[in-house]
């Protein structure tokens, strides 16, 4: 009962923080948003943090992560940090529009909200609330349901800043937009970025969302991203997670798809202490389609939980889901996927697959594919596998002179490659390709992503130990 006490105390602390800092939290928002905030706060008070008693959280225990004394920043911390110097991302040569968040705050302080000639708006959500309340209010809080999830409620109550992207009807953004979310603090920090992305009719966007930590203090990140895709729009979405072992991260990403829109979302977890990704996709219009791809590579005592929910809320919708994971040492990976086909959603097609490679006896995978179908004219399938490297394949490679270690590498890489090849931006695919192979060789460090601060800190090492297989 001791740990419950600690979790409660963080909850209490947050409740106090909310009351004490209400003025700061509320001052930049519109009344409309502050009303949502107040409702969400009540929801959080009611629900609190999820516990393992909830079916959806059975395998992910937040108690440890919640037992720390986190600080919250209710306004940006001075101008001491020059983001260009703190962080240098190697995917830069990928010619993107880059937007950076530091500890949740939108970091490009000179141009907080950028209006492109074609009507595209990219920038800080806080500023967007101020400048374009009409657009923001139409979507804010509509897709991420705070009445059913304590953590989404918590984010909604405190949400102050994050990335805002608006793409008008019929506009295609030719370059990918890259969101980089950096945590850099001398304190243990709780951060809650809030992102809102709106795609107009027949518009097109490629979005790369990267999460990194710089200083190795504990952090707890609770992100909510709401993405609205209007009729005929299409989006290529990438989530790259390379967090240190001391960070806990919960991401809640809710997509809302109107008719004939087309989404590809790729979740690539390279490293992270505790990661829980809630991915919710609502196929709300006829002919909408979603591809969900996921890859997780975990070792040490890492814990990665991917929870996906695809809601076929309209007839003639399709989804195709493939998540693959390599789980080494004492790590644990969870895949829980639910597909809901509503009564009127005839001619739904949905496939869901989860494949896992377990490298040690200690590694754990919990895989829970789940279909809930109320329509009768549908084509749905699901499957899950948990296995080891195939001894026949290993022998075949070794019989050609390839060392056992390299043979394992080749096979693990081949396993991951099925997801990597789905990445449609060539520069990004190459980059992820090399990150994945470095990761599998145990050569990837947080320093691969940022050049400055890593070297002064003790870097946690994580290697796939080939000898243990």
């Amino acid at each position, binding site marked *: 009962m001791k740990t419950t006490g600690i979790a409660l105390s963080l909850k209490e602390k947050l409740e106090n923080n909310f009351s004490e800092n209400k003025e700061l939290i509320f001052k930049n928002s519109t009344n409309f948003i502050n009303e949502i905030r107040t409702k969400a706060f009540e929801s959080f008070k009611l629900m609190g943090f999820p516990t393992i008693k909830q079916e959806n959280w059975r395998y992910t225990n937040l108690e440890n992560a919640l037992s720390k004394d986190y600080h919250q920043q209710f306004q940006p911390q001075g101008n001491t940090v020059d983001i260009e110097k703190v962080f240098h991302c190697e995917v830069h040569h990928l010619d993107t529009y880059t937007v950076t968040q530091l500890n949740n705050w939108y970091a490009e302080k000179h141009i907080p909200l950028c209006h492109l000639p074609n009507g595209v708006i990219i920038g800080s959500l806080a500023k967007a609330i101020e400048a374009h309340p009409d657009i923001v209010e139409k979507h804010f809080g509509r897709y991420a349901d705070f009445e059913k999830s304590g953590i989404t409620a918590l984010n909604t109550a405190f949400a102050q800043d994050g990335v805002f992207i608006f793409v008008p009807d019929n506009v295609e953004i030719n370059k990918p937009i890259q969101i980089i979310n950096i945590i850099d603090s001398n304190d243990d920090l709780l951060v809650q970025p809030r992102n809102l992305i709106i795609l107009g009719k027949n518009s097109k966007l490629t979005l790369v969302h990267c999460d990194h930590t710089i200083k190795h203090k504990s952090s707890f990140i609770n992100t909510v991203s709401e993405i609205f895709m209007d009729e005929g729009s299409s989006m290529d979405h990438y989530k790259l997670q390379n967090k240190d072992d001391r960070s806990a991260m919960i991401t809640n990403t809710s997509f809302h798809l109107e008719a004939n829109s087309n989404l590809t979302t790729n979740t690539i977890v390279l490293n992270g202490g505790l990661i829980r990704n809630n991915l919710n996709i609502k196929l709300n219009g006829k002919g909408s389609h979603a591809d969900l791809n996921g890859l997780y590579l975990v070792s040490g005592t890492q814990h990665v939980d991917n929870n996906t929910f695809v809601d076929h809320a309209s007839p003639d919708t399709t989804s195709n889901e493939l998540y693959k994971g390599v789980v080494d040492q004492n790590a644990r990976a969870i895949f829980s996927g639910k597909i809901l086909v509503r009564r009127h959603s005839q001619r739904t097609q949905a496939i869901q697959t989860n494949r896992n490679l377990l490298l040690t006896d200690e590694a754990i995978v919990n895989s829970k594919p789940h279909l809930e179908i109320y329509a009768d004219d549908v084509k749905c399938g699901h499957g899950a596998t948990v296995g080891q490297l*195939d001894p026949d394949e290993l022998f075949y490679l*070794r019989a*050609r002179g*390839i*060392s056992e270690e390299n043979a394992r590498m*080749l096979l693990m890489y081949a396993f991951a490659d*099925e997801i990597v090849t789905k990445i449609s931006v060539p520069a990004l695919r190459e980059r992820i390709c090399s990150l994945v192979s470095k990761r599998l060789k145990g050569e990837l460090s947080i320093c691969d992503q940022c050049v400055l601060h890593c070297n002064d800190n003790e870097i946690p090492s994580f290697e796939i130990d080939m000898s243990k297989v």
Partner: protein
Amino acid sequence: MLKIKNLKVSINNKKIINGLNLEVNAGEIHAIMGPNGTGKSTLASVIAGREIFEVTEGSIIYQGKNLLEMSPEVRSREGIFLGFQYPVEIPGVSITNFMKTAINEHRKYKGLEPLTATMFLALMEEKKKMVDLQTKLTNRSVNEGFSGGEKKKNEIFQMAMLEPTLAILDETDSGLDIDALRVVANGVNKLRRKDNAFIVITHYQRLLDYIVPDFVHVLFEGRIVKSGKKELALELEERGYDWIKQEVEAQSLL
């Protein structure tokens, strides 16, 4: 080159090879024939280093070295090649990547620099021609979606790439039509030299029309019970194995 003495092999305590003797010299082609389930493929696997088999007795000396102490990859780098009866499909591993890794590990073992990409591709093209392989390999995964014939041709292609000293072909002819059979046989004949040797495991005499063996051995109940020249293969084709079984039984009665 290869000396097998009194070899005994078990799997899960079941004896499969039971006192086998065989000597192969450079420049020779040996054919091993015999009914199903007599240990032919086991022999091939044991020479290549498959770990699921337990060698309980005997020795295998290859070029003066104790083969049984070597890992499969070291055996390969020392010049041993196994053409698999059932080549494995490995989705996601491209043939190019696979062969490049293999060749460069062989070269590293010999103290040579790795091949450059250009040199490697040139070598691939040369060997593809040599074994008459028309399949586009560059973007394909190892054996994935290959027909039976393509898989076997791919084995011969790999053999050509690695230029082994001792190649064991485990029923490479099974499941091949006559054209594919000719391609496989031509590959072997082109690779044949004075300083290398082949062990060809087969059920059928027809392969031996194309690859002419110096010696033919009959494997039965885990031992070589009869050896002869290429004419023995013809006799087996004509008379089957029953007369050999009878001979063996008669001997055991003595």
